[in-house]
């Protein structure tokens, strides 16, 4: 509770003190306590990767509590610099006073887009397209080879930049020839997973016998479905190895790119679907796990901060990062002791980048700790800087340069590291890592899969 919610004086001798409601009943989200908690130490500003390289960005303290106060006067619009915020959310974990900075930024950005942005502008149309990747991806993924060919053409990239302001410097991510959900259905869906989980539990046997069923609902997100199904498959195999039955509920985009582009109505629609489906999975006795650090961030923090559908808090409180869940519910490190890796990732030294959205969940050290248990794996943390891409941010022509300037520290550290392969849990961080260094990038779950299950064996068995 902030001091603002507390009465400041006590009528002498009266124990039954009733605070008086001074402010009218709030019709929208009341961010006043958060704004009042800011004592202007400016720690958030020193963490903002954008303010460090871009003269025109006034920083998180302005975008949050200061702008909120200015907005109390009717004659102030939201400052258009709010669109320069990349939504990395580093300011949240910087604040020593619990000011909900990213919640304020999300709210201000939503209001700016809703009330001040021209809906026919190139910027709006472009942002809408980027934010709603989930709606376009199925088209590309229907004819993946054609889509990959067309998007790889320099003419397409040139058009993208000229027409839409999508940076022509970047290579668009390739669509997988088979989506994760297609693979999942072909494999027999939940029924197959249930059998495999039972078998695994029986095989683990001995001291590890667990009679009660273990069940998770997997929130794969868009990228692992359309672009990197190998990450999603790795999660399935690793969880089944521990005897978990996996459910793959219907799901929409987590909302991360929509928040970042101020498309709060789009985000609300997606969140409503996700909360409904995931709440149903909880009813079925599953916990929710996600493999993408921004998806888990969104469900855990942004949903309860911005929406109040029935079950939102429950879903948020029961959603986990996929590796963290295993760490807490299984003896993951014990299981990894003595394992090693063969196949494509063998003899790889990894250059690990902790995504900002993992950092904000207290997960920045986790990957290094877990991988240390695998024989022959040498992982190097490339430092605490932001990769700079921040989802759709670095795709925009006007932010490309800022994005690369922010990323330069990480690129330098990756190149200095004695490593062959990049490693991270965020899809767009991995794009940036590859773009800036030419490294191949993999996901922590793929490394765990290689150690625990072995890629070759599984591929043969399927």
């Amino acid at each position, binding site marked *: 509770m902030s001091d603002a919610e507390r009465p400041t004086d006590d009528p002498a001798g009266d124990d039954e003190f009733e605070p008086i409601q001074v402010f009218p009943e709030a019709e929208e989200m009341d961010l006043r306590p958060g704004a009042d908690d800011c004592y202007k130490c400016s720690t958030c500003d020193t963490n903002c990767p954008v303010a460090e*390289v871009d003269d*025109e960005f*006034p920083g998180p303290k302005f975008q949050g509590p200061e702008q909120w106060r200015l907005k109390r006067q009717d004659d102030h619009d939201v400052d258009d610099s709010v669109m320069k915020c990349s939504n990395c959310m580093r300011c949240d974990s910087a604040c*020593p006073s619990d000011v909900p900075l990213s919640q304020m930024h999300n709210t201000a950005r939503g209001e700016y887009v809703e009330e001040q942005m021209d809906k026919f502008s190139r910027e709006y149309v472009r942002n809408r397209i980027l934010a709603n990747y989930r709606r376009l991806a199925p088209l590309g993924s229907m004819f993946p080879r054609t889509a990959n060919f067309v998007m790889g053409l320099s003419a397409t990239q040139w058009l993208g930049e000229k027409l839409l302001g999508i940076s022509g410097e970047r290579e668009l991510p390739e669509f997988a020839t088979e989506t994760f959900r297609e693979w999942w259905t072909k494999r027999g869906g939940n029924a197959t997973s249930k059998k495999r989980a039972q078998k695994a539990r029986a095989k683990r046997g001995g001291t590890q016998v667990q009679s009660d069923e273990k069940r998770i609902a997997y929130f794969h997100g868009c990228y692992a479905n359309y672009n990197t199904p190998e990450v999603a498959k790795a999660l399935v195999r690793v969880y089944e190895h521990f005897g978990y039955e996996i459910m793959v509920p219907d799901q929409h985009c987590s909302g991360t790119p929509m928040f970042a582009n101020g498309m709060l109505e789009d985000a609300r629609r997606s969140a409503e679907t996700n909360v409904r489906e995931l709440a149903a999975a909880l009813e079925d006795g599953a916990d929710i796990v996600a493999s993408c650090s921004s998806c888990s961030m969104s469900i855990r923090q942004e949903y309860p901060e911005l929406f109040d559908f029935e079950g939102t808090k429950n879903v948020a*409180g029961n959603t*986990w990062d996929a590796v963290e869940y295993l760490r807490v519910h299984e003896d993951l490190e014990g299981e990894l002791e003595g394992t090693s890796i063969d196949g494509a990732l063998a003899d790889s030294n990894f250059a690990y980048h902790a995504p900002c959205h993992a950092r904000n969940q*207290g997960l920045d050290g986790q990957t290094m700790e877990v991988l240390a248990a695998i024989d022959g794996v040498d992982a190097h943390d490339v430092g605490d800087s932001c990769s700079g891409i921040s989802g759709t941010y670095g795709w925009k022509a006007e932010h490309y340069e800022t994005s690369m300037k922010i990323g330069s*520290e990480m690129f330098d550290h990756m190149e200095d590291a004695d490593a062959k392969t990049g490693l991270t849990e965020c899809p767009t961080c991995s794009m940036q890592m590859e773009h800036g260094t030419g490294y191949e990038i993999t996901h922590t779950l793929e490394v765990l899969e290689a150690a625990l299950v072995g890629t070759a064996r599984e591929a043969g068995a399927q």
Partner: protein
Amino acid sequence: MAIEDDVLVIGGGLAGATAALAAADRGRQVRLVSYKQSTLRHASGLIDVLGYAPAGDGPLVDPFDALADLPEGHPYERVGSEAVRDALAFFDDIAGEAYAGSHTDANALVPTHGGTVKPTARYPVSTAAGLASDDRDALLVGFDTLPDFEAPLAASHLEAAGVPFEARGVTVRFPGITRDDAKITRYAHLLDHDESVETAAGETTARDALTETIRSHLEGESRVGFPAILGDERADAVRADLADRLGVDVFEVPMGPPSLPGMRLEDRLYDALEERGVRVTTGVPVVDYETGAGETGPNGPERIDHVVVDRNGSEIPHRADQYVLATGGLVGKGVRSERERVFEPIFDCHVPHAADRYDWFVDDVFGDQPYARFGLPVDRDLRPLDAADEPEFSNLRAAGAVLGGYDFAAEKSGAGVSLATGYVAGRRAASEGER
């Protein structure tokens, strides 16, 4: 499964980091959990031990002379003066070339951004050429977009304070910065990367433009002081480059929050943690704890079995053999207050305070404020004590500003107490586990 380690340190500031380093040095597997970024980002980066005696005498020439006279319950009295020396030596080892002052027991006098002079035991090398005991004349340079440092005012204050040199202040424009509220990281980044900037004379680099601006203001001074924004990752190179170009010594004047010297110290400590294999978890609070069976029988203190870390609603158990509480004081929120009480929020350790809150303060703002001494009382093993002077838990120690019985702001003892108590708590936690 809980996340398991030998020693768990709660709090990531100077005390917490020192405790973690000291425990790791003795071969224990240590984890440091920090909710938010540490208040080192607010800190000047100076390592003071004792600038003024609790009664207000000072500035003290030799802080160690005064340690023996501290009242019972003062953190230095609890750990003893040898531990203070050991902790400083431990710090010197970690700080390496980045800090100066270890050649003497006497306090150094470092000019601050307000033009006062602060007695301190160790200081960043970036401030070394600025010491007030040095009799060379100094030019102080401020920037019109950085109102936290008013150079002419600071120079007059220094002269009024009786420094043995002439101080002069000028305010100039920082090349490449146009906005009135540019962040200190922006200044540092421009200099670190020596980015190209536009000046009236055309395009040049940030360092070049800055030295050209200063050169015309020099009137024979052999040292120039800047607010502490001279680079972050490459601060030493920036300072050396500016000094070389200007042909004078260059120093930094420590600033208020947010503070680059504090951030550089934080970086150095966290690099040391990584080197020693300390596992660091940040961004999540410890919200609760569970006790196990008391190890000293039914009447002995309780033993903490594990603590609970909150990750956006999921509760993650963390278990260790020994725990160190280094969550800070009223600013760091390791000690909190409500209308009726002052309390320690994680373990609810006893915090002595008057029942009537009107006795928590005195009307003279700069007077002897009781609230400034609020914090945990501890035994000589740094274990928090309950109202009956018995240890609250058998395996919990406390370090840094969460401790009571001293007023760091008045005494100028904040960093020293964090170092000494962090060092002792970390070492004791490590050796306890070995038994």
